[in-house]
């Protein structure tokens, strides 16, 4: 059946494709597109879609969980491969912690597959809906990026299907040019068909979590520098409304794995039943409707009140310590389903610059003040520590990142874009970098400035080698890199 659908003849390309036309939005909901969406389940189907693309003169974009905030997984008016049907765990060895998965396996699927054997993915995103293929393509990081780097640092090898139909195996030794370019190569070189990764041993289903309120940016930085060596995870939440001496105030959460023996009944705490979130909040309110109650606070007044309340409660509460399950600590973004709906129909974008530790403090202070001057404040600001890595199109560096969520409305589109351009200047002057999974505003010249001409040329050379027809494209590729 499926076979027939894909093997359309020359004459009915148009009608066959119309069947696949779908509206595809950016995760943040601020950009919209229409694409010919295909959902292959096997390599044979993938190959037939490549042929269809070549016959019909359309490019092919790749999409995993569709969690990229901007246009990284969109391919307007062209073919878009939703990879979520290639979602089998191909091999799992609970002795060594090495897992081999298809690209459509989600983080959610992965951790649930391995946790009861006492393992956890070394790098997870803030939502568990991302796929491993998407994570590898974007070389994502977690709240432990400063210790373990991005997910690419834990990928041992992968199989990649090229547009020619050939599949090649890449590792740090074999086809290493493709290995270092495809991880973080945002789907421009080939299609991951299997990814082999090393998981991390855990001795409990819990983490020891510490929270503390910081009164300003100095406090934030000091806390991070004090605890980076001794903590497994650190993440800061900044109140973008705080001004003057309180600029950059917020909460910090850090967490540590429990050492062997600290959890007396790990077989209990590692069980999936123990990890799963309750469907209700406060015991009564279904979590699926919580976003409705957040809706009235998604404006400058509402969020500043909420932030103020959190600051005051944190002030009286001081620092706290508690145990939390892995799932609850990591997947905060999943805790309130559809929370992005609280931002309204215009959606949101994220702006996340990465800045070296030497210049980060001043640059972030400048950025926070600039947003305040422009009257465009972000309602969620996440602060993280990173380390450099060896991938070609990396965003990681020895420094900090600040992820800022901006609510988009029709009236704010141009001002937000202008603000992003102004922030770009600060980031570039501070020697910073950008992260394509989050991006909606990067311009070619800025990309060239932070990546360097040589890096882009090198990436394009790899692309010419493995995708000579330039068949793999996305809206993001055309926006930033196609003309460079």
């Amino acid at each position, binding site marked *: 059946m499926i076979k027939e659908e894909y093997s359309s003849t020359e004459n009915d390309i148009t009608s066959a494709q119309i069947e696949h036309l779908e509206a595809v939005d950016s995760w943040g909901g601020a950009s919209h597109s229409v694409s010919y969406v295909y959902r292959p389940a096997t390599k044979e189907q993938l190959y037939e879609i490549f042929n269809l693309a070549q016959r019909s003169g359309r490019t092919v974009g790749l999409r995993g969980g569709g969690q990229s905030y901007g246009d990284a997984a969109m391919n307007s008016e062209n073919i878009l491969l939703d990879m979520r049907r290639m979602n089998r765990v191909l091999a799992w060895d609970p002795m060594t912690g090495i897992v081999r998965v298809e690209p459509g396996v989600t983080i959610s699927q992965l951790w649930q597959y391995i946790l009861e054997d006492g393992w956890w993915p070394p790098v997870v995103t803030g939502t568990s809906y991302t796929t491993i293929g998407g994570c590898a393509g974007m070389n994502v990081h977690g709240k432990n990026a400063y210790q373990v780097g991005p997910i690419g640092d834990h990928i041992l090898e992968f199989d990649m299907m090229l547009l020619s139909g050939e599949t090649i195996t890449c590792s740090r030794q074999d086809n290493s040019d493709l290995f270092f370019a495809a991880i973080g190569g945002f789907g421009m070189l080939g299609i991951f068909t299997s990814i082999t990764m090393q998981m991390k041993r855990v001795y409990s289903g819990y983490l020891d979590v510490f929270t503390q309120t910081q009164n300003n940016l100095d406090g934030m930085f000091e806390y991070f520098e004090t605890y980076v060596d001794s903590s497994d995870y650190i993440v800061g939440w900044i109140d973008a409304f705080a001004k003057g001496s309180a600029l950059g105030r917020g909460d910090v959460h850090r967490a540590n794995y429990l050492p062997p023996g600290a959890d007396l009944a790990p077989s209990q705490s590692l069980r999936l039943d123990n990890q799963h979130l309750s469907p209700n909040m406060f015991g009564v309110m279904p979590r699926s409707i919580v976003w409705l109650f957040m809706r009235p606070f998604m404006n400058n007044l509402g969020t500043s009140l909420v932030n103020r309340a959190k600051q005051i409660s944190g002030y009286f509460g001081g620092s706290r310590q508690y145990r939390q399950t892995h799932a609850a600590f990591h997947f905060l973004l999943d805790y309130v389903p559809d929370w992005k709906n609280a931002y309204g129909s215009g959606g949101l*974008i994220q702006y996340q610059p990465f800045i070296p530790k030497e210049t980060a403090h001043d640059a972030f202070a400048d950025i926070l003040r600039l947003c305040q001057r422009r009257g465009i404040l972000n309602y969620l600001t996440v602060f993280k520590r990173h380390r450099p890595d060896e991938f070609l199109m990396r965003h990681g560096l020895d420094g900090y990142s600040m992820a800022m969520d901006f609510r988009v409305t029709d009236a704010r589109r141009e001002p937000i874009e202008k603000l992003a351009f102004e922030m770009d200047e600060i980031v570039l002057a501070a020697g910073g970098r950008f992260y394509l999974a989050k991006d909606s*505003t990067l311009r070619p010249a800025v990309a060239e400035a932070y990546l360097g001409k040589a890096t882009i040329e090198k990436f394009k050379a790899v692309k010419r080698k493995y995708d000579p027809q330039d068949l793999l494209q996305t809206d993001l590729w055309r*926006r930033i890199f196609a003309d460079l």
Partner: protein
Amino acid sequence: MADSRTPAKRPLVTRPRAIVIGASSGVGAALTRRLVLSGYLVAAVARRQEMLEDLCTSINASLPTENNQVIWPYAHDVTNFEEIPDLFQEIVQTLGGLDLIVYAAAVQPAVGAQEFNFDKDRAMINTNLLGAIAWLNQAAVRFERARGGQIVGISSIAGERGRVAGPVYNTSKAGLNTYLEALRNRLSRRGVTVTTIKPGFVETRLLQNAAKTFWVISPEDAAKQIHTAIARRHQTVFIPKRWLVVGLIIRHIPSFIFRRLSF
């Protein structure tokens, strides 16, 4: 594969994209100009290539110097029905998407009071009605799947009743009205707006063969009002508004009187 490049380079600040069929003269040309000036990227489709190129040149000249193309000319005769599906696909890919389609193509040859000329009749049905169906069907399929978009048909007050002066012109516009109404009923539940524009007399080539004229407005005035109707996502609009009253009266004149009238 650089040809599949979309013009949208700013995800936050995108420009809406439109196809105007029948863009080379009259209301179509004036509306094309207005759409471009208000920020649309427009594919201008028309039969007469030279007039189309003149239009593009004059529109480009009236714009501040910009690097990016904002208007794409396509020479096409709407009665070449079989080339429409591919052309539609090509245009949409070039524009990088589609938000609006306007069908403004129409012909009205001079028809004598007692003339029954099938060649002229067929030309009117082909251009005014079948061309519209061929083009707007394409847009309907796409907009339904995309869950949004706007379809605009430039019909006429002439479609309200069948009159002695123009049996088949009236028929073509009445057919268009009914087709658009049906599209609206099919698509409005899918987030698609279908707008029927019913102009009275507009100072265009079509008017040369109209018998008696009054309340004549310029194509620019008509385009301005149509643009407003598009922006407000209206359903059915008389241009100018006073024709609503005329339409209402004409529709309700009983046949035993209407068949004795001479217009």
